[in-house]
């Protein structure tokens, strides 16, 4: 019954088995080594009445209440973050899967879904084993990698971790951040859709997480991170990125460009039409992405507080504005506003507001919305045809371009009025810091991706045979058909 499987599969599996055995060993060790003490939430309260009231007020205001309410999450904040984490998962499953799945040809839609699903599984295991610790640990006291203390989520309990949130359970925070770690590599799928071997893709993602995502996320959000402008006083670059303009969109977008260049265009690219097989699916995906993105953006406040409310508002305004502006651009320049145009505009708006949403006012959000449509619109309709790379579903055009202008616009439009955490020392040179962060991100993404992609090209091979590609990846790579009538 064991199918004869080829070298690549065996390589992937060896890799996985190796990692797993290592991980499991370490996990068991870890668990024995440091049993986190069971909390006693019903114990009598120490502290004066004054302190106790202050701690309760701290819950309302999302400030430090650990004097008398240590180790307990706050219900409103925890509720919001569980909701937010579920919403961000919803962005990938099934949101992004449908958004991308609708844009490919019928014969490849399942391959897109399989890639999304595979990434969810792979990244979760990496995150559990090492990723969370490498990003949000601080044991290494290092600007690029976090620490080893939370390997296998060791010590990550339902108590809050004050470095990231006063009132949200650290395990919820870890799951919330896992959802970011999932969607980021999944975005890359768009650029290389319809023509990459599944096994190679998964292997690529394995390395990409360690080389690009984990260091990048630590740099920006880790408490000892290199570019964590607000919360790490020792940060080298005092940049800000509320919900992941650099970490999520720039990394995935620029990696996309490099990977699709190394991979080469789809067979028939520019010779035959390759229209979306279901704009309806793409629109469903867009709606889900938008709704889920509230978890992504407003959730990045890690509390249901004033900042979250601001992020929620800015996200709504920028996204709707960008969707409308894209449609109107099409109407003016081509005579017809299309569903795909509205959808692309919405996603572009979401991307560009991502780093800014917790830092800009309503008016700033509307301005960002307009630019979020105009710049990617021309990048996709003028730049891409000229340069001729096959960014199949426009991951570069939307996420790299959008993420980059988002990071820069955040530098221009961030205001204390929207977010009082913005200290003057950060604000004074903010645009320069943002520019620096953009450059660092771009280099890491491009170089990291190029190394992995070339290594895999010459070992496992990146592309299936022309026959497989022509027949479609669904049947050849996954043994299924999407629709049977």
């Amino acid at each position, binding site marked *: 019954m064991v199918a004869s499987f080829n070298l690549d599969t065996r390589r992937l599996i060896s890799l996985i088995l190796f990692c797993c055995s290592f991980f499991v060993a370490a996990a068991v060790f870890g668990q024995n080594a440091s049993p986190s003490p069971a909390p006693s939430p019903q114990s009598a309260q120490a502290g004066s009445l004054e302190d106790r009231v202050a701690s309760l007020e701290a819950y309302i205001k999302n400030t430090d209440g650990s004097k008398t309410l240590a180790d307990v999450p706050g219900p409103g904040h925890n509720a919001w973050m569980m909701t937010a984490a579920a919403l961000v998962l919803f962005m990938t499953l099934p949101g992004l899967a449908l958004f991308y799945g609708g844009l490919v040809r019928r014969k490849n839609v399942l391959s897109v879904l399989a890639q999304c699903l595979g990434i969810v599984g792979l990244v979760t295991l990496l995150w559990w084993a090492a990723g969370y610790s490498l990003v949000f640990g601080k044991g290494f006291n290092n600007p690029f990698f976090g620490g080893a203390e939370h390997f296998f989520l060791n010590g990550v309990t339902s108590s809050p971790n004050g470095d990231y949130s006063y009132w949200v359970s650290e395990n919820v925070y870890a799951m919330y951040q896992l959802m970011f770690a999932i969607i980021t590599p999944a975005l890359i799928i768009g650029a290389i859709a319809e023509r990459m071997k599944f096994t190679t893709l998964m292997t690529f993602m394995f390395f990409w997480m360690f080389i690009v995502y984990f260091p990048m996320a630590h740099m920006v959000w880790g408490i000892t991170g290199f570019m964590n402008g607000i919360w790490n006083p020792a940060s080298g670059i005092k940049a800000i990125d509320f919900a992941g303009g650099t970490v999520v969109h720039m990394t995935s977008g620029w990696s996309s460009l490099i990977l699709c260049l190394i991979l080469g265009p789809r067979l028939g690219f520019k010779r035959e*039409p390759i*229209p*979306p097989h279901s704009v309806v699916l793409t629109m469903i995906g867009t709606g889900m992405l938008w709704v889920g993105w509230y978890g992504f953006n407003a959730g990045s406040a890690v509390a249901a507080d004033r900042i979250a409310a601001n992020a929620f508002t800015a996200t709504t305004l920028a996204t709707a504005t960008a969707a409308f502006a894209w449609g109107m651009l099409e109407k003016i320049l*081509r005579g017809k506003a*299309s569903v*795909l*145009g509205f959808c692309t505009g919405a996603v572009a708006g979401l991307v560009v507001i991502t780093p800014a949403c917790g830092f800009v006012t309503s008016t700033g959000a509307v301005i960002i919305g307009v630019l979020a449509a105009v710049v990617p619109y021309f990048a*996709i309709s003028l730049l891409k045809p000229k340069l001729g790379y096959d960014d199949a579903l*426009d991951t570069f055009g939307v996420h790299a371009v959008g993420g980059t202008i988002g990071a820069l616009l955040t530098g221009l439009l961030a205001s204390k009025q929207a977010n009082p955490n913005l200290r003057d020392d950060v604000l004074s040179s903010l645009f320069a810091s943002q520019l620096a962060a953009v450059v660092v991100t771009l280099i890491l993404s491009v170089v990291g991706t190029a190394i992995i992609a070339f290594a895999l090209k010459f070992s496992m091979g990146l592309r299936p045979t022309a026959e497989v590609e022509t027949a479609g990846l669904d049947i050849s790579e996954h043994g299924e058909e999407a629709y049977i009538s």
Partner: protein
Amino acid sequence: MIGWLRTEMKKIEAIIKPFKLEEVKEALSDLGIEGMTVSEVKGFGRQKGHTEIYRGSEYTVDFLPKIKIEVVLPDSMVDNATTAIVKAAKTGKIGDGKVFVYNIDEAIRIRTDETGEKAI
């Protein structure tokens, strides 16, 4: 070759605009034609297609949705039937479609094993 004399049957194949199907069907029913087979096809001809734009890329779609109707009938009814189809399917605008007629040697009704004219 006896069967050949016994029955002269033709097949009419009409390519028409999709929204004319109901009318053509009724026109044929009015002639007492009780059976037909219909399929969805795409037509390419003088009728211009349209342009679709997906993000940057423009595609010209030349193939337009048409309906193909196939009716097998006795020779004697062919003229009436073609006339009826043409009348019902006509809009006068380009792309109205075609009617083709050709010979059928034999027809069998699966349910009863009847053959020839009785089978249709």
